[in-house]
């Protein structure tokens, strides 16, 4: 069977198994709270959330490629667009916008004004250095590494710290030129 034509984020999201976002939101929140208790240092919690995200991203990429019909992206620019419009939508039900490209086309910002991880969340004063959504940056880094793109992902804006949006800076460090592995239905 030929690879499916890439679908819109809405169509893909409509076709995946979905659950109540509250379960996801509260589970993630409880994990963050427990990590803060057990690891004590906010820095260490940021690191572990990123690591958890990375491991998830490494696994989610297969599901993403299989269900989205996306088989290969021409360049990093297209990749960023696919993450924002299809990736975020397929998993979290929200879309991001891609902005602030640098001249070389190797780094850009993904901007979200809403995301289900932060529903109900108000950070206590003791958590000023916490990147609450750090799992997301890990997921992006992990997933992109599986399609041969080494990236660095950092937070620029965070509404939990009073900013007007969530902004992730994605910087392409190295790209191994190679065909993306894509899955065909046999």
């Amino acid at each position, binding site marked *: 069977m030929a690879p499916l034509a890439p679908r819109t984020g809405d169509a893909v999201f409509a076709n995946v198994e979905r659950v109540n976002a509250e379960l*996801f939101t509260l589970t993630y929140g409880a994990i963050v709270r427990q990590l803060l208790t057990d690891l004590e240092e906010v820095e260490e919690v940021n690191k572990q959330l990123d690591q958890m995200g990375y491991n998830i991203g490494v696994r989610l990429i297969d599901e993403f490629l299989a269900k989205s019909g996306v088989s290969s992206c021409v360049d990093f620019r297209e990749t960023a667009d696919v993450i924002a419009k299809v990736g975020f939508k397929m998993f979290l039900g929200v879309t991001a916008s891609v902005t602030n490209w640098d001249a070389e086309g190797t780094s850009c910002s993904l901007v979200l004004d809403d995301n289900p991880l932060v529903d109900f969340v108000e950070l206590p004063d003791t958590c000023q250095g916490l990147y609450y959504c750090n799992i997301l940056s890990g997921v992006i880094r992990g997933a992109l590494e599986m399609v041969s793109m080494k990236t660095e992902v950092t937070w620029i804006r965070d509404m939990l710290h009073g900013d007007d949006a969530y902004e992730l800076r994605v910087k392409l460090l190295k790209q191994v030129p190679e065909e993306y592995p894509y899955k065909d239905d046999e």
Partner: protein
Amino acid sequence: MGREVAESCVDGVIMEMVSAYCNRFYSSKPELAARRIEAIGFQVGHQLSERYTMERPRFSDHLEAIKFICKDFWSELFKKQIDNLKTNHRGTFVLQDNQFRWLTHISIDASPDNVEASQQDSSSPTSNNAAQFTSMHLYFPCGIIRGALTNLGIPCAVSADISNLPACSFVVRIKA
């Protein structure tokens, strides 16, 4: 219609949490890892019971609250009800799910941490590791049930029995 996310988000986060606690933070102290995983579930259950009982009359006894867990609560989480509820009428309830979603969904091999751990320790067979990982996983739903019932005014202990996979029985013992 409330907000939704892909089920793989929930599966991924739970699997990674269990893996982090068992293989990274408390790899040599499984009982501590178990307690933390249970505590995370407890908080989730505590909060969910608050949300899911919002529009309903108060329960008049323990059985009514347990039935709520079996029906509405379970349906919200797993899109199905508990298949079988048994009780000894002395404070012990057994809630059986014939096809527990979180057991049929977890792919043990896929966790990078777990692969590492099993490679390092070649003396223990992988199936043993898998069984241990599965039982670690169950502390999370046990915590959810305990958190939900505790918040409904029913202090209890909850354990899981998986001798009949993929069926899973949750044993609730109400504290007198």
